[in-house]
């Protein structure tokens, strides 16, 4: 009996899907996918028809960029006592509507933990909030001041501000010459009266949340050129790398994973370019595959991503982080192997309409929020050096289409005196398959061994067969059989043709008079061959 049990167990192991096997590695990431979430995010409505429609997205982006895990629920779905399970609650109030969930109201009034309240202040919901002096202004162009950085010219339809002097508050809203605190804290309550999905407000809120979570003070800004494919303009990639390298600008290249045709010379050339980028102080970041292009099956995605990353490492390309929209962080962690094995990532702007309902997120160990060059352009710094936004940010700029665009981008970066951090200096790590990769200011190490990023061009096979002929069984037998049968059939056709030619003579001789045979080529009716009974 035991013998059969062993066979059963062996079979079980053989047929288990890959994620279970890989799951051992995923276990190392338990800290990032813990079932205990850092914060409960409660929103009243998505407010899709208003300027606040993307607010939930923006807060979710911030949380993932701050590497915070969250549980998200709407007020309607809120159940009594849930709030008390969390030490931190964010309440996003996108509308001025009354709240009808009595359990929620009751819990709010009795909640003893830390809370950030964003948006419309509903009377009676949070007792402490009723004492905040709030004024309302319509149609204003405002600036958001984050310590030394000011993001200007933000149009806002309805501005609610805490009507008091900012005092020592680092983050303020500037309306003309007046300044208001971006947020006000009273005991365990922090109130942000106005929030819209605009870089100034998002980054300012990010700073508030970072302090609220008591996260590390130091922040970094990195630079990412996203969406690089094997069929991107690789010459421009090289040119951009050279230009950034010459300007001393550390940058990262976001590579879209390709899991098909990875043995093709085009792919080898692509890897060669990526190695070259690394040699120009570029860092390789891997994008999360588009959900539209991969199967929903986590097993398929895992297998493909393992293959992609293993192949990259084999070819001397070392991805150090993940670039993804925040929607990734709502997926089941077990479905994301090995994407969740990266320690760091860049959260790209996500414009998709948020989905309602309850959901949970996981987080990378460290993240940064993607911002655009336009945001940099709209930001003025009180010092020569640009400095940093309150949270980790990544400047996302598209691959320049031409040299003029490249020059413009370089000019902007240089003129702004941006202080960009080399991504690989940010203590990144991952273990995928047989490889453990770490990076720090001292460089990249694979399985503990330092690797050289010096570019070494390798010959690429030119006579590669892009479309390999399909492999057939019994090919030799069929090829020989085909030739044999062709010969036999050919011979039979010759014999048949000879019979037909011969039979033509027999036919004419039998059915036609000899005289007519020479005059016309038509068989003539021979009365002797035709019976009376013949129809």
């Amino acid at each position, binding site marked *: 009996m035991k013998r059969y049990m062993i066979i059963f167990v062996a079979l079980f192991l053989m047929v288990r899907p890959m994620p279970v096997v890989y799951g051992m590695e995923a276990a190392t990431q338990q800290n990032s996918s813990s079932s205990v979430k850092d914060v409960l995010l409660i929103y009243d409505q998505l407010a899709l028809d208003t300027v606040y429609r993307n607010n939930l997205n923006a807060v979710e982006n911030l949380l993932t960029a701050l590497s915070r895990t969250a549980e998200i629920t709407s007020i309607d779905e809120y159940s009594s006592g849930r709030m008390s399970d969390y030490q931190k609650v964010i309440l996003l109030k996108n509308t001025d509507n009354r709240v009808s969930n009595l359990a929620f109201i009751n819990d709010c009034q009795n909640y003893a933990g830390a809370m950030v309240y964003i948006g419309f202040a509903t009377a009676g919901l949070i007792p402490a909030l009723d004492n905040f002096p709030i004024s309302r202004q319509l149609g204003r162009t405002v600036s958001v001041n984050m310590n030394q950085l000011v993001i200007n010219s933000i149009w806002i339809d309805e501005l609610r501000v805490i009507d008091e002097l900012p005092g020592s508050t680092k983050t303020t809203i500037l309306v003309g010459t007046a300044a208001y605190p971006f947020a006000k804290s009273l005991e365990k309550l922090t109130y942000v009266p106005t929030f819209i999905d605009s870089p100034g407000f998002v980054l300012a809120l990010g700073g508030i949340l970072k302090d609220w979570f008591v996260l590390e003070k130091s922040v970094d800004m990195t630079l990412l050129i996203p969406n690089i494919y094997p069929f991107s303009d690789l010459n421009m990639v090289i040119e951009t790398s050279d230009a950034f390298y010459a300007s001393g600008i550390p940058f990262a290249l976001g590579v879209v994973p390709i899991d098909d045709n990875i043995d093709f010379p085009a792919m080898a050339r692509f890897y060669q370019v990526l190695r070259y980028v690394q040699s120009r102080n570029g860092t390789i970041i891997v994008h999360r595959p588009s959900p539209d292009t991969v199967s929903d099956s986590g097993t398929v995605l895992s297998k493909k991503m393992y293959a992609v990353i293993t192949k990259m490492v084999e070819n001397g390309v070392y991805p150090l982080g993940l670039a993804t929209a925040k929607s990734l962080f709502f997926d089941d962690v077990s479905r994301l192997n090995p994407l969740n094995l990266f320690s760091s990532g860049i959260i790209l702007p996500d414009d998709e309409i948020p989905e309602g309902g309850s959901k949970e997120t996981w987080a990378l160990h460290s993240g940064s929020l993607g911002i655009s060059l336009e945001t940099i352009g709209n930001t003025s710094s009180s010092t020569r050096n640009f400095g940093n936004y309150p949270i980790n940010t990544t400047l996302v700029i598209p691959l320049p289409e031409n040299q003029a665009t490249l020059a413009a981008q370089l000019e902007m970066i240089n003129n702004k005196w941006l202080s960009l951090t080399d991504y690989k200096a940010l203590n990144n790590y991952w273990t995928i398959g047989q490889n453990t990769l770490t990076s720090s200011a001292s460089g990249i190490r694979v399985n503990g061994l330092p690797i050289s990023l010096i570019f070494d061009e390798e010959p690429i096979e030119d006579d590669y067969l892009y479309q390999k002929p399909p492999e*057939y069984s019994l090919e030799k037998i069929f090829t020989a059989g085909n030739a044999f049968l062709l010969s036999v059939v050919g011979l039979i056709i010759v014999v048949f043709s000879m019979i037909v030619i011969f*039979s033509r003579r027999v036919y004419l001789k039998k059915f036609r008079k000899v005289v007519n045979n020479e005059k016309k080529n038509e*068989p003539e009716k021979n009365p002797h061959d035709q019976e009376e009974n013949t129809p």
Partner: protein
Amino acid sequence: MNVFDYLMLINIFLIWSLLFVNIVLIVAGYVYYLKVEKEQPPEIIGEYPFVSIMVPAHNEGVVIVKTVAALLALDYPGDRYEIIVINDNSSDNSAELLKEIQDSNPNRNLIVINTDKISGGKGKSNALNIGYQQAKGEFIAIYDADNTPEHKALIYLAAELKADDSLGAVIGKFRTRNKEVNLLTRFINIETLSFQWMAQAGRWQLMKLCTIPGTNFILRRTIIEAIGGWDEKAVAEDTEISFRIYLMGYKIKFQPKAVTWEQEPQTWSVWFRQRTRWVKGNVYVLIKNIGYLVDKDAKKIRFDIFYFLSTYFLLLTALVVSDVIFVMNMAGLVSTSIQGFSNLLWFTAFVMFVLGVFIALTTEKGEMSVSNFFIIALMYVSYCQMWIIVTVYGVFSYFKDRIKKQDSKWYKTERFQG
């Protein structure tokens, strides 16, 4: 290689093997044709044997007069043959028409047996058994009710049978008298000619084997006596009786100069029903006699049984299975890894088919034409494919009848004016 590869391999072997068997038969058939052309048919020396011609007829009023007239006009001494028309439970005016002929030929041996639904109406075999009760001839000839035999048809058949004691039966050739009606009758004309020159003449030339075609044949009375008449369960009574003749140690010879002209189906529905009956009949005979494949005493019919087995089961299965696998492969439902043969080979095989069939047509007056060459090519993609459907349906119907324990119904081929 997977299971589909092995299936395809078996199919390829079967299809090509059977193709080559038929190619050999084509050549042998043509050789026999040349031989027959050189030789004169034997003459009857001494007294002409008395022949009973039996014509089973069920509602054959449209054609029966012409058939009996042709039989009365045979080039054979009138007192040495009798015509027995079994008017089998007809509901049309056959009885009146036959009475008129009888009355106008008072000095001829023309017997008309009218049966009703109690004594008759049970199919061709039953009708033949009824006719046989009154037959006096030492030789029995059978003609279908739509036949117009040529004058010398009977004398050629009788002379062959009389000249060779080893022969149990002699079969003649049948031609399509309505071949000009439409494309279907042209197809059938080509089909019947090629079948006779390939399967009948070819087998006779190589193995002294033929199969009684159901009409225009003659056989010894002693054979019918020995086998106890026709098997009334057999829908294809001709194939059945052929096997019985071989088992008795006789041969069946093909005499192509004994010609009869018969009317073939002019519509696809009639054709489909007639051919379904043939298939069911042949499957019945095949299953009934399959044991002879391993019977030491049945060497002579082994090839015939194998030939039927090949046609109705092996080739059919091979074609259907390979078609199904091909379609499923195209749909991505199954995958095969065997290389298969080149398109050139399949094309040459097609050319070979067309030429092979055309050879059979060169034996007949007016048939060696360019139009027929193209009709053969057209047959390959239409008529031949229809045969697959008919065979599948026939085999299916046969087994359905067996499961339901129903006797196969004898479908009488519908006749047409003309």
